[in-house]
């Protein structure tokens, strides 16, 4: 009886190993088949470049935020990503993997927050970060940025009936909500020489709630994000002039030992292409114009 049990157990183990081996064996040929099928439309890259290794891997990991209208939103019902940054990411995917009706099959979306943007690059959890990512000197020490793909500035969102806050200087002594770990927080401190009282939360929708409930007197961040909030709540208004210039770039891990060779240049060339062929303007018109009521052809317009 005991011998029988042992034989049975051994049989199970063998069966398991066999299945595992077959599984591994069949996976390889099908992957190769898929790769050869799309070779014809795929752009050619130098073998040393990072874009080449991404192309070979068949996936690019794009880090962006789940609730950052109008730049990136993950639809909670369908799980589909949408927004300016998201569409921009899909253009990059097309530039690497070739034209496709569904570039998402080449993309792994990595949800990030303001605070996790840099760590997700340095820890190699994402290949690019496209998330209203302001280029600044401190950050440049940690990671590389592409050329500016979006230009905006910081303004202030208040309730419609608020008449006391008109400019950044009026924020002194007021409770101002901003996202933790963002440049917005530091800009508020600078513009009011530390006289504002920053309430720092994890996302701007939470800040909007705090404003609605009277827990914050104002929300202050990049105008484009405020557009999204003002659209969500018609009882709010955007006031003041720009009190900072925010230049967004795409974040990429620094090339250590050549592991990101040519990648930033490639992204910059892709952007030049998107501006020349009007794709950038189309994205702006689709995602930003509905809230900003203007049109731009290039980031510098």
């Amino acid at each position, binding site marked *: 009886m005991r011998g029988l049990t042992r034989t049975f157990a051994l049989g199970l183990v063998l069966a398991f190993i066999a299945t595992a081996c077959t599984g591994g064996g069949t996976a390889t040929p099908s992957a190769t088949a898929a790769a050869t099928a799309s070779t014809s439309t795929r752009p050619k890259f130098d073998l040393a470049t990072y874009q080449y290794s991404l192309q070979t891997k068949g996936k690019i990991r794009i880090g962006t935020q789940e609730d950052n209208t109008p730049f990136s939103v993950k639809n909670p019902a369908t799980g589909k990503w949408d927004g300016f940054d998201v569409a921009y990411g899909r253009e990059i995917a097309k530039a690497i993997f070739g034209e496709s009706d569904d570039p998402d099959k080449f993309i792994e979306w990595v949800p990030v927050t303001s605070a996790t943007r840099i760590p997700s690059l340095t820890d190699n959890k994402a290949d690019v970060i496209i998330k209203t990512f302001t280029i600044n000197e*401190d950050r440049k020490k940690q990671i590389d940025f592409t050329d500016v793909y979006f230009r905006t500035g910081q303004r202030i969102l208040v309730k419609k009936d608020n008449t006391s806050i008109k400019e950044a200087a009026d924020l002194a002594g007021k409770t101002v909500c901003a996202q*933790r770990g963002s440049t917005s927080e530091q800009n508020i401190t600078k513009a009011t020489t530390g006289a504002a009282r920053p*309430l720092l939360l*994890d996302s701007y929708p*939470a800040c909007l709630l705090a404003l609605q*409930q*009277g*827990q*914050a007197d104002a929300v202050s961040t990049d105008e484009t994000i405020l557009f999204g909030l003002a659209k969500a709540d018609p009882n709010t208004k955007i006031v003041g002039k720009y009190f900072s210039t925010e230049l967004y770039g795409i974040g990429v891990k620094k090339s250590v030992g050549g592991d990101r060779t040519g990648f930033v240049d490639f992204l910059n060339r892709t952007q030049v292409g998107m501006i020349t062929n009007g794709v950038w303007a189309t994205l702006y018109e689709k995602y930003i114009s509905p809230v900003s009521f203007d049109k731009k052809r290039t980031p510098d317009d």
Partner: protein
Amino acid sequence: MPGGIAFEFPQLYFTGLWVTIQISILGLLSALFIGTVVAVMRVSPFAPLRWIGAAYVEFYRNTPLVVQLFFLFLGLPLIGFRFSTDTFEHIFRAASIGMGVYHGAYVAEVVRGGLLGVDRGQIEAARSLGLSYLQMLRYVQLPQTFRSVIPPLGNIGIALVKNTSLASTIGVTELLFAAEIVESRTFRAEEAFLAATLLYLSLTIPLGIAVNTLERRMLVAR
């Protein structure tokens, strides 16, 4: 030196640590108070009190602490109630009360277990000696209960100290929050969070030792 970054930003770290300590103490005291009251309700001879006690425990134990904190922070003002007109005072009190009501549910379960563990004969003896129900609780049942539940209460206390870090989600500038600000300014993530970890340990390890000592002192021979 590991955690040395705390001395580069003492204003952030040590103010944060102090806020963590304050929320922990206020939270612990209110959790003990709420938990004891609810536990007594749950073993009371009067059925509706038992139901209220059970409902309290089930509600607060089965909803996430972050959700409860957000409710106290932004939900209550929606129905016209706030702990203070000052936002920062409001979030501080919301965090302390949130710690109290949430961990109070756990304390209630532990204390209830202790109450039920007291020998039935003692309770009957107390009642037949002419002690009222409340007197019996006060002089017979509760003192024995607290001696026996010190170790599990210690666990809840330690969990509470660590859970105060969730107060950062509603904007309270406690220890974890301080570490996140330092991280976002210096990008020295490992150092920033290591310092916070060491400071949390400086609270929880002594607390654990204190609980063990107390347990030995209060030990009853049975």
